[in-house]
């Protein structure tokens, strides 16, 4: 749905009734509507060849005009539509076509207001909600993957779980996700929303657009307006639904029983051969030839899983009241063959009334009720390390109950049974959320001045039930008692906004001024309780039904309050020279420093508006933009700002614990003296861009270059000798890159086609780390083994380690290699052919710390998307691609080989390419090498290319009308394939890895094939 605005309104009013005429008059009534039958307000109606007479269509699209008897036709013009002439009759109905240059006239939702797209000085992307609806995803942000330049979306395969979203790189160690504003309310995530409820979605990327959101703006802002009815609108009912199946794609193939046996025997330890022998003894086979070959991923995955969505939507309006109601049901089953799914009910109510001609009051409520069964993603990791030599079930495992899962311990391994890991996981999250918004908007002074006051609230509560039943995985008698943990959370947030908007103009000068004040408070509270020995019956899952544990509870929470004053001024001369300036003062209860100030300035120059451009035919529209501003990030944790005295039993020693006496605490305390004040992070952003429309407006595009410098980036600065670090604003980093979007629209006969594409580049650099030259980090439990490094002058968190050059092929090569021969001179376990060869960067003949280098960044250099859309008569077809390039993934599944001795398997690729003699391969080590310490270092062997290209969406639709021709029902049937194919060299399930690029416990993304219907009447 698009709103259109007329800036001719005021001029038209002046025209109306100013010129009285002596001629005979005739009164004409009429209605202006768009192609979809929606009223078009603000259209100027004039009489052809008779200046001085005019009318403006009302909000219902209606108008009345007195015309001279001689008049024969009316001319209707409104921005955004082609000018149209109609013959005079008593009652005219005009249907307007959208104008060629309409996109420039489109009104874009910006922070605390709207703006004509042509006047923007900021690179604001308005999301095409039509295209978004083509994607069969349960969360709206997933549907944007690859379609917005500068916005990287990394999907998460678990049902209902939101993707990770980065706008223009990573500028913080703390919070990198953008701010979402839903009908004025700030939220951290929009997976509660149903995509069909979204009317408008704008993404603010630069300072000129986002700085009005002050301390919440640094990671970009996503503005969402839900659907609303219109005045005098015929009630429209829309049903939208699809049913589909999800199918695992790119399933990781592991070594099978035979390959594993070979590998295991080549490793050559007694333990390895014991396992092989025990497997044949217990599960079939003979001697060193076991017959068991379990494909754990196959066992763990459903062949297909259901996804379905049904929504019904009502919109309408009378003279003074508009309303809309939306109901939606979404269900997504997980592809893990265990209890994991997402089910969501949404209800949306919107009502707005014109209480007085100058006053509108309204409310919207968005209610979400969802149930998520959260999967145990660790099972995917377990499946990587589990040997194929034991089956899923084992009837001989006498002690195992309630299910006779096989235990790897019976063949001398420590692998978890992945199917059991998934099966014994019960993690149910029930969430309920209400988002009510109440507002009043008063307009004065011929609507030049508008005052709006709005209170938005968010109330959400959730109950998470985690239950693990009493069980024994065997083979021993040890029983794990049942455990219940219930976690309740509650958010109560509100925002009170008061906005005064003044919009005016004189001649070719247009200006507006916004003054705003906002107060907000966010409260979160979490309580959890846990107990053992809770009965299996779900009705008894209350902690009181089990054995209470003294440590089985905790309560957590926070209250953050903020108060802000902000203003925005816009000015343009003849829609040619554009200026936007914003300023926000933000106060926060979180930090010792209470107030922060965030200014921005944006300039635009519509070059095609100049006389010297009049003659040229290359550009239909060309605008140059530039902006600068400061944005804040209050995702920085608060701290107390004083030394903390720790008391209580955890800081008291035991004395007198003897043979008979149990000992007792003598009260004690310790002091944590390390602290500093903290405040928000500040991003200073420059953006330069160009928007253009060319070749008869068939080619449209925009190019932006940005640079974002984060100062006061907060992190835990470590010190020597202690784990105690000081969390403070120590660091600086810079992100820069290009965002480019292009599209081509044209027709060949009845075939309308559209080709679009976008890409973004990213360069990230850490420029300061306090006084530290560098800092290591990583992911648990491989923080030290596979570290990443944060270093001044380098990209954030690059993988750090040795550069693998190849594999030593022969004893001769080892003897001639200084690194290997030096190592072998003293080491107890010597380098042999088949061992990996690492590069001696400094050439000193010893593999040491100086040889550890940057072996890749998890941040993609380029992310891109492109699509093709075709319309032919009643058919439409579209295909969208999406991908990223230049990023690296640390394959931690393989990395587990580092620690694994009693629990490991290798992927099929590895197994079939393993070194087995001189010249066999230069990319994979031998089986023996894997067991040795030489292999167990962070090296580029584990770092893989994470680039991929995916066919994101293919849709074929057929649209037709049924019913009476006066009130036709429009029906569209469509077939969709979501994410059907992926092209990647990465040796893992999926190259989509959230966080700093470590692949472990990742829930794979699946393909979805569905059939859908949309009907409106």
């Amino acid at each position, binding site marked *: 749905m698009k709103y259109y605005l007329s800036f001719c309104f005021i001029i038209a009013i002046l025209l109306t009734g100013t010129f009285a005429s002596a001629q005979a008059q005739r009164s004409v009534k009429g209605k202006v509507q768009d192609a979809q039958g929606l009223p078009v307000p603000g259209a100027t109606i004039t009489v052809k060849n008779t200046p001085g007479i005019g009318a403006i269509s009302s909000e219902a699209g209606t108008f009345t005009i007195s015309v001279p008897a001689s008049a024969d036709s009316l001319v209707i013009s409104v921005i955004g539509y082609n000018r149209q002439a109609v013959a005079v009759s008593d009652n005219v109905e005009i249907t307007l076509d959208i104008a060629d240059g309409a996109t420039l006239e489109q009104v874009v939702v910006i922070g605390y207001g709207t703006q004509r797209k042509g006047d923007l000085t900021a690179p604001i992307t308005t999301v095409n909600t039509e295209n978004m609806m083509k994607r069969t995803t349960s969360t709206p942000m997933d549907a944007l993957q690859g379609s917005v330049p500068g916005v990287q979306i990394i999907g998460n395969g678990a049902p209902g779980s939101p993707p990770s979203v980065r706008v223009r790189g990573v500028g913080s160690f703390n919070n990198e996700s953008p701010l979402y504003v839903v009908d004025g309310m700030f939220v951290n995530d929009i997976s509660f929303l149903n995509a069909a409820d979204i009317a408008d979605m704008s993404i603010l990327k630069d300072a000129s657009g986002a700085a009005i959101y002050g301390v919440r703006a640094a990671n970009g802002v996503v503005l969402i307006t839900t659907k609303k009815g219109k005045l005098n609108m015929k009630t429209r009912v829309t049903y939208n639904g699809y049913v589909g199946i999800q199918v695992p794609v790119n399933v990781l193939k592991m070594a099978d029983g035979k390959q594993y046996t070979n590998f295991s025997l080549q490793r050559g330890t007694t333990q390895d051969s014991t396992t092989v022998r025990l497997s044949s003894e217990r599960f079939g086979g003979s001697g060193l030839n076991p017959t068991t070959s379990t494909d754990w991923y196959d066992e763990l995955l459903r062949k297909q899983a259901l996804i379905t969505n049904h929504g019904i939507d009502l919109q309408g309006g009378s003279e003074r009241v508009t309303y809309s109601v939306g109901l939606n049901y979404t269900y997504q089953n997980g592809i893990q063959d265990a209890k994991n799914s997402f089910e969501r009910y949404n209800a949306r109510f919107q009502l707005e009334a014109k209480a007085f001609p*100058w006053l509108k009051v309204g409310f919207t409520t968005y209610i979400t009720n969802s149930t998520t069964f959260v999967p145990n993603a660790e099972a995917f990791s377990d499946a990587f390390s589990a040997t194929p030599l034991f089956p899923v079930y084992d009837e001989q495992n006498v002690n195992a109950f309630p299910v006779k899962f096989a235990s790897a311990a019976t063949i001398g391994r420590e692998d978890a049974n992945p199917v059991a890991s998934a099966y014994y996981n019960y993690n149910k999250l029930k969430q309920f959320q209400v988002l009510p918004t109440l507002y009043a908007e008063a307009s004065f002074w011929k609507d030049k001045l508008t005052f709006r006051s709005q209170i938005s609230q968010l109330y959400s509560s959730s109950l998470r039930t985690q239950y693990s039943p009493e069980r024994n995985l065997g083979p021993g008698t040890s029983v794990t008692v049942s455990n219940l943990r219930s976690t309740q959370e509650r958010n109560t947030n509100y925002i009170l906004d008061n906005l005064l908007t003044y919009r005016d103009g004189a001649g070719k000068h247009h200006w507006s001024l916004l003054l705003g004040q906002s107060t907000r408070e966010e409260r979160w509270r979490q309580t959890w309780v846990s107990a053992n020995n809770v009965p299996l019956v779900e009705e008894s899952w209350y902690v009181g039904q089990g054995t209470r544990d003294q440590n089985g509870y905790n309560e957590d929470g926070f209250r953050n309050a903020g108060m802000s004053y902000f203003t925005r001024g816009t000015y343009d001369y003849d829609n040619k020279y554009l200026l936007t300036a914003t300023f926000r003062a933000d106060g926060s*209860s979180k930090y010792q420093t209470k107030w922060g100030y965030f200014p921005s300035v944006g300039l635009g120059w519509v070059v095609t508006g100049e006389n010297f451009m009049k003659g040229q035919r290359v550009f239909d529209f060309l605008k140059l933009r530039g902006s600068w501003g400061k944005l804040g990030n209050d995702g920085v944790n608060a701290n107390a700002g004083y030394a903390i005295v720790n008391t209580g039993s955890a800081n008291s*020693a035991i*004395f007198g614990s003897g043979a008979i006496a149990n000992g007792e605490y003598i009260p*004690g305390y310790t*002091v944590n003296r390390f602290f500093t004040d903290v405040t928000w992070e500040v991003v200073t952003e420059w953006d330069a861009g160009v928007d253009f429309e060319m070749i008869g407006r068939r080619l449209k595009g925009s190019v932006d270059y940005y640079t974002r410098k984060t100062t006061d980036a907060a992190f835990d600065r470590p010190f020597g000798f202690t784990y105690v670090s000081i969390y403070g604003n120590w660091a600086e980093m810079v992100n820069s890159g290009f965002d480019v979007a292009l599209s081509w629209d044209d027709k060949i006969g009845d075939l309308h086609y559209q080709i679009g594409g976008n890409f973004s580049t990213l360069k990230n650099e850490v420029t300061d780390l306090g006084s530290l030259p560098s800092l290591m980090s990583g992911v648990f439990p491989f923080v030290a083994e596979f570290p990443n490094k944060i270093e001044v002058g380098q990209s954030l968190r690059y993988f750090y380690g040795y550069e693998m050059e190849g594999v030593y092929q022969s004893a001769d090569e080892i003897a001639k290699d200084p690194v290997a021969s030096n190592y072998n001179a003293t080491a107890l376990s010597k380098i042999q052919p088949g061992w990996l060869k690492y590069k001696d960067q400094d050439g000193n003949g010893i593999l040491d710390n100086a040889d550890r280098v940057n072996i890749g960044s998890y941040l993609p250099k380029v992310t891109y998307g492109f699509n093709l859309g075709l319309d032919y008569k009643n058919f439409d077809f579209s295909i969208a691609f999406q991908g990223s390039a230049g990023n690296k993934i640390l394959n931690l599944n393989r990395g587990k080989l580092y620690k694994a001795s009693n629990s490991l398997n290798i992927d099929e690729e590895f197994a079939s390419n393993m070194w087995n003699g001189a010249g066999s391969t230069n990319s994979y080590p031998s089986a023996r090498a894997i067991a040795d310490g030489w292999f167990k270092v962070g090296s580029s062997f584990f770092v893989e290319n994470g680039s991929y290209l995916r066919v994101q969406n293919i849709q074929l639709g057929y649209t037709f009308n049924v019913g009476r021709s006066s009130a036709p029902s429009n029906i569209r049937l469509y077939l969709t394939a979501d994410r059907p194919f992926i092209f990647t060299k990465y040796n893992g399930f999926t190259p989509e890895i959230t966080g700093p690029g470590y692949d472990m416990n990742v829930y794979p993304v699946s393909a979805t094939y569905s059939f859908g219907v949309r009907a409106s009447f």
Partner: protein
Amino acid sequence: MKINKQIAALVMVIAMLTGCSKFLDRPLENRAQATEIDYANTSLMYQPVSGVYRTAASGTFAKWISVTIRSVRGDEIETGNDDAGQIAIHNYQNNVTVKSYWGINDMWISIYGVVLAANSALEELDQFGQRIGSGDAANQKLHAQYEAEVRFFRALGHYWASRYWGDVPVLGIESNDPNALSNATKTSRADVLAHVMEEMDYCIANLEDARPNQAAHVGGVTKYTALMLKAKAAMDLAGNNNGSPMWDVVLDCTNQITTSGKFNLFPDYYQLWKKPGKLSNEAILEFQYSDFGNATGDIVTSGGANELWGNFFLFQGPENTYGMPISGAGWMVPSQKAVDFLTARQDTLRMRTTILRCGVNGVPGTTAVTPDGDQVSGNAGLKKYFNGKSYYPKNQMTVDRVDYYGANNNIRVFRYAEALLMNAEAKVRKGQSGDIPFNEVRVRAKLLPINGVTIQQVLDERRAELICEWWGERFNDLLRTGQAATVLPGFITGQSEFLPIPQEQEDRNSNLKN
């Protein structure tokens, strides 16, 4: 008109909200509040001291990973798994695998954690001290004693740090400023040891003259604990040089301990490591823990906060896959060399106490029985043994306490038996007879006395008496007697004596590179 009213209303709302200055200034919720300590109240004066004891006992000195690292440097303990860092340490590698191994960094932080806690407590004690009147001799004496207790732990931290890393920084009270931590410089190992001895002189003069289990705070450090540490530092400085004056110090300190008449050996070497042996008259320093005799609820173990793994007994417990009460992570496996050594000596009591079996040769599905009748199975890693000195039998466990194996046992650090053997060694090295103290230890182990003991016999007895304990005595003895390179495969003199300074520490403080 209406516009004016609205604007006026807006201005009022804004003014009103601005007026609510509390709105932004309210303190953060759910935070520890700023605490005022009443330094004039001397009854609180022991509190920072108790805090240091707790820091030393939980998550630091006896933390699992540091215990493992210093043990695998000797030849009595195998790594028990194929963790690359530990294996590299076990093989005396000095490369990146060791230098950037998280474990040595953790061990560094664990040990210096006690030093920093002590410095912080000294600053607190200073606050109390300033408020004690000049005429209040009783409290002045207490204050000096408390300070000595804290300084003992600080010195113990420095002592151990230099034992494992050689030249290390000595951190004084200035380290309460974090910036000092980024600039600290190294002190030579000899100077660290000299510093420790100097500190011990203060402690000896000011600590209680009591056996630890008779101290006012039962089990606290006393004069004899300080004498023991001073003797150990002196012994390290003396090395293998019989002419070193440091042997006089060793002799003097250990004489003071042995002639005090306060100590005697616990009669049952097997039970010494179990509940009956807690805080016995043999204990010179013990880290104390408790489950308070309750089946559930509060518990104090050697692990840090919420760190099950950190439990000293648990991580050394056998991997009892078949679910019997004695169960752990199966680290710290007694080496075959240690078993062979005891077997060859026919040291049956020490063997029976220290070397316990996991099934038959560690094979899964087989079962062995401990002297207390607990069943222990084989395991996936085919580990044959587990350390009996950290074995806690089921029949001594608090009834129904199932969550922390070994919960109600203490960790033995300094024992009178070691003091006797040091006394014997000093005597022999000084040309005197060490027979009396030597045979006292030997007889308790149910071995026949020896007349005219030699240095090597004393060293062998030390090895047997302290076998598989957790403080690296065996490795240190090989170092100070110059035998390491011949006894330990892979050991290279001049390279393998000390662990490299952790990479992370050098990254944070470049002074440590020099």
